[in-house]
């Protein structure tokens, strides 16, 4: 089924967040690889913020991604 646009926006927001703060690789990769890396990075972010580590873009994780914050990455490469 086509992904509902709301979910798609949230997914893009999450990818942008993870790219900026958790070193999620830029650019498109193989579908399987992308979802694996995405889940891994979500887990890193959930662990950092002491959220429940699910690897899923659940409401709490998404809500935290929308909070005002500092632009320095939380872990990983510091650009």
């Amino acid at each position, binding site marked *: 089924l086509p992904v509902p646009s709301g979910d798609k926006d949230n997914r893009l927001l999450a990818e942008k967040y993870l790219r900026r703060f958790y070193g999620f690789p830029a650019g498109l990769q193989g579908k399987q690889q992308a979802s694996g890396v995405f889940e891994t990075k979500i887990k890193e972010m959930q662990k950092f913020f*002491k959220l429940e580590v699910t690897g899923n873009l659940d409401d709490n994780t998404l809500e935290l991604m929308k909070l005002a*914050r*500092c632009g320095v990455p939380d872990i990983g490469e510091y650009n």
Partner: protein
Amino acid sequence: HFPRHLKWQNNNVTFRILNYTPDLKKSDVDRAIRSALNVWSDVTPLTFKKLHKGNADIMISFGSKEHGDYNPFDGPNGLLAHAYPPGQGIGGDTHFDEDEHWTKDSSAYNLFVVAAHELGHALGMSHSTDVGALMYPIYSYTTGYPLSEDDIEGIQALYGPNPNSKKVKPRPDAPNKCDPTLSFDAATELRGETIIFKDRFYWRLHPQMPEPEQTLIKSTWPSIPNRVDAAYENPEKDRVIIFSGIRMWALNGYDLVDGYPKYIHKLGLPKTIRKIDAAVYIRDTGKTLLFTDEDYWSYDEATGTMDKGYPRSIEDDFPGMDDEVDAAVYHYGYLYFFHEHMQYEYSYNSRKVIRIMRTNSILNC
């Protein structure tokens, strides 16, 4: 810390403010930056010298979207500022997003609070996972001394302590929910969730959230004190009452109700009562029990008056509870008293304590 524990090799660091936000007077910006630097110099040997021209170690500026370092800001909210670890060139430089509204208070983003955090990066601190630390990545407005023990430990690991150290009172780190000696300050329901207050924080338990979520009280309710003594929910009125000292606040959902704080004595408590230890609403009777030291009171929510014949002794009326109460909640005929690191399940019907558990078993520990 950043990789390789990047730090300034010289304790005499220079800084320069390249431009100013129109949101504040120039002198307010100067003061905010100086105060933010003093936060770190108070606990280290570092000194900060202001330059008015030329290249300083820490170059401070306000810019919006792409502002010269290929690390663009994003308009209002979202990214507030960023800074670079110590080093040559852009190292140490600190940038604030001009699309934010910068203030001296809590009405928008407080420049001092954000500057103190960013200058932590400029000195070599990376982000902390402690929700109460200044170096925690999410913005929250706080008053009082900004550094937690976690922050001080981090910066002194890089530069050592301030040889002429001023006595500072660091904020205790966020309480660990699985600490076996954990006690609670207060507990209440809130529209199906359970809120547990401890120190400057509260945990939020939701039936669909196995992991309690810890948050700073002030990041949700800036005007409520850093410490809550007691709290209860009256679901009929959709109100949560929060007590701190001799004052009380009312919430509707997470929103503060106008007209508060009020004095607790409005409930009919004598002036000699200066603090409520615990409060719980008993749905079956429509009464709210207020616990103070060894006694408790009964407040009739329907009439808004204190019942006659109180205070009564906790020990007499709740056999098995022979000590003070830190917090209390009521579920389906059972009162849960929390005292220090134990919780007591008291059956209203059989009028006795039927189970004793650890206080933090409610936090899945």
